[in-house]
């Protein structure tokens, strides 16, 4: 049998529901398999751990070819909110929690959460802007130190 994966470091670099969920599912899934996991949020992915934003993350209906929606239709007011609400309801039925609950769940599962220092500086954010599950704000060097010996997954 192949060697089992023992450790992963997952980077979430994109905002929006489709940017944030895959990394969270991968991290939570890792913990469920007994794999050591850490999450590193950078650029717009940082929205997922910013207190004021984490509950308001939407799916883009414009400029998102995956939605198979005409741009003119996608730009109608409320379209993104509607698509988000529909998607969230479907996910909830599959026991995929809303982002704030998911962050809490994955942290309780023993996954460590970090925010990217470069982005924090760029957006002029402070530690207090983040949900309590965020362990610390770290630079890339520290990230590699934490990820050492494991696999790095960029999303």
């Amino acid at each position, binding site marked *: 049998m192949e060697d089992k994966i023992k450790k992963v470091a997952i980077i979430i670099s994109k905002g929006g529901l489709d940017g944030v969920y895959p990394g969270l599912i991968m991290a939570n899934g890792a913990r*469920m398999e007994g794999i050591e996991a850490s999450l590193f949020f950078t650029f717009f992915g940082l929205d997922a751990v910013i207190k004021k934003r984490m509950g308001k993350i939407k799916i883009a209906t414009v400029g998102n070819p995956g939605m198979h929606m005409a741009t003119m239709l996608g730009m109608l007011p409320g379209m993104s909110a509607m698509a988000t609400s529909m998607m969230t309801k479907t996910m909830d039925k599959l*026991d995929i929690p809303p982002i704030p609950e998911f962050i809490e769940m994955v942290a*309780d599962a023993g996954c460590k959460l970090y925010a990217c220092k470069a982005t924090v500086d760029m957006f002029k954010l402070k530690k207090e802007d983040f949900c309590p599950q965020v362990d610390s704000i770290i630079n890339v060097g520290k990230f590699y130190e934490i990820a050492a010996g494991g696999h790095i997954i960029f999303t």
Partner: protein
Amino acid sequence: MPTKHFGTLSVDVDAEGFMTDFSQWTKEIAAAIAKEEGIAELTPAHWKVIDFMHKEFKENGQVPSVRKLNKSGVISTKELYEIFPGGPAKKAAKIAGMKKPEGCV
């Protein structure tokens, strides 16, 4: 179909050691599987989880997720990971004599 032996008891299992015939499950079997999974003794907290899993499976035909266990007030996610170290949902399902959970979360 592989068979697993625990002393004088034997049960049918799949390739990963999950029981395939729930009617063969007993508390003694559960304790034996738990030992194999590195849990020396099943405490009341473990039994609470196992009982809930059986109840959920009877009612919905599904192995409950970690989230469901947490939301139903059976056990917090943190504690669940503590008492079933190294993969709570999978281990609990195995000990409870159920199939491997299929969901991603």
